[in-house]
């Protein structure tokens, strides 16, 4: 449903994305792998128009969204996407409950009297009890923050969910719980998911397809099985998490 063609993004002199080509199939989970600073967040921010692209196309259902300039049309497009931010990005001046229902006021016609029901339902969906709703974001642990943030995304019922490093900074058990949650949501709601990660364990568990982003290009695209069997030294090094290999040599040359 989403086709990324020759996508480029530069910040000043820095070419972060050089030529990214990628298809995101509907109803599947696509993982984007890559090292820190390789431009993963940049890539998905381009997808929902938080960043302006420097070149190339992004087709959503055949329509090029990089050509949309009207703020109103862009808002209509963003409505179909949910974005789970890396640190949660919860509004710290509001309670958990207000955070969860924030998008409803602007994106939907849901009457305010239904909000308590939605809060309860969405918190349950991410495995949190209703009484969390009264807390402030500063009172939550890292894992809870991510789950509340996910509940906020789910409240507006998006077709596509973009996860920015959903398991980074969490302990292994919480990481696995979040991975299960992503699988669960795909099964229950049939959403299309794009998951950015450098957590190989999680990627192999949740992904239908994996894309490896390296130096601004997609180096390898395939199923988790393809990634396990690959001969590509770069991908192999990343998958096994070794400090010895071509990636480090590249780093030293710079």
């Amino acid at each position, binding site marked *: 449903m989403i086709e990324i063609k020759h996508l480029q993004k530069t910040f000043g002199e820095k070419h972060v994305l050089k030529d990214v080509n990628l298809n995101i199939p509907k109803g599947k989970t696509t993982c984007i792998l890559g090292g820190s600073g390789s431009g993963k967040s940049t890539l998905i921010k381009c997808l929902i128009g938080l960043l302006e692209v420097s070149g190339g196309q992004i087709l959503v259902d055949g329509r090029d969204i990089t050509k949309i300039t009207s703020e109103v049309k862009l808002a209509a497009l*963003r*409505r179909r*996407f949910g974005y789970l931010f890396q640190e949660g*990005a919860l*509004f*710290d001046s509001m309670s958990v409950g207000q955070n969860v229902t924030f*998008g409803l006021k*602007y*994106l939907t016609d849901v009457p305010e009297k239904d909000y308590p029901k939605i809060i309860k339902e969405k918190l349950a969906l991410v495995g949190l009890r209703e009484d969390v709703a009264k807390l402030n974001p500063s009172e939550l642990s890292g894992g809870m923050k991510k789950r509340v943030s996910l509940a906020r995304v789910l409240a507006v019922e998006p077709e596509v969910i973009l996860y920015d490093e959903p398991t980074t900074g969490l302990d292994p058990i919480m990481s696995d719980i979040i991975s299960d949650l992503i699988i669960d949501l795909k099964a229950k709601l049939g959403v299309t998911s794009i998951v950015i990660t450098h957590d190989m364990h999680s990627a192999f568990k949740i992904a239908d397809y994996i894309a490896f982003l390296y130096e601004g290009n997609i180096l390898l695209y395939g199923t988790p099985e393809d990634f396990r069997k690959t001969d590509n030294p770069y991908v192999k090094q990343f998958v096994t998490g070794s400090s010895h290999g071509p990636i480090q040599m590249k780093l030293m040359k710079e």
Partner: protein
Amino acid sequence: MFASVGRYVLNVLNEVGGSADMLRSCVFWLWRSKFEWRQTVEQSVNIGVNSFGVTALTSLFTGMVLALQAGNTIGSIFGDPIFVGTLVTFSLVRELGPVLTSVVVSGRAGAAVTAQIGTMAVTEQIDALYTLGTNPIRYLVIPRMVAFVCTLPVLTLFSNLFGVIGGYLVSVYALNVPGEVYLTDITSFVDIEDFMHGFIKTFFFALMIGTVCCYKGISTRGGAEGVGKSTTGAVVTTIVLILVLDYFLTAILTAFGI
């Protein structure tokens, strides 16, 4: 040397352009969407309550010191401290009331606005607003701009009042000027134009403080350090601009006979 001056000038031009852009989208969104009443009232209360105590105190002492200086100087020339009320009130309502109040408000409330919006920017809360269907200009900037424009003039009114009271206290108790004389000095020589001269300025100061502080907040990058930088940057910029703007506003307003 030239390169760094050039870079500095480019930087400033860039920021001016960015601020102008933000102001333009403020106007765009002001007419096109539901007005955020709750946010606006909340922010006005914040700014007003935040700054009232400090502005009252500064203006009280400003009035006192003005009276003391005027009394001593005039006393040593004419032998008698005459026209103290006139001098104090004249200086206050035309210049010191608006300027000092604006400076205090920018240091107190302006810094808080930049720090808050800046923190939201570096923790991706601003991006989150976009993804949840809310334009941050509409949701964050406009309410704060309106709050500044509504509260700064009111705070200035109180500052003027407290300054005049401070002058009264010093005149009566330190300079032995009768209270009635101090008050008639005010009513017979200071007129409504003098008051308007200062009052009109406050709207421009408020608009400038709102613009600079919100823009610095929104354009914050680079974590906690970035928030610190943009907050001090916002305060320094607004204070300098208040004084610069004050000169030009005075020139323009007097040209119009106010």
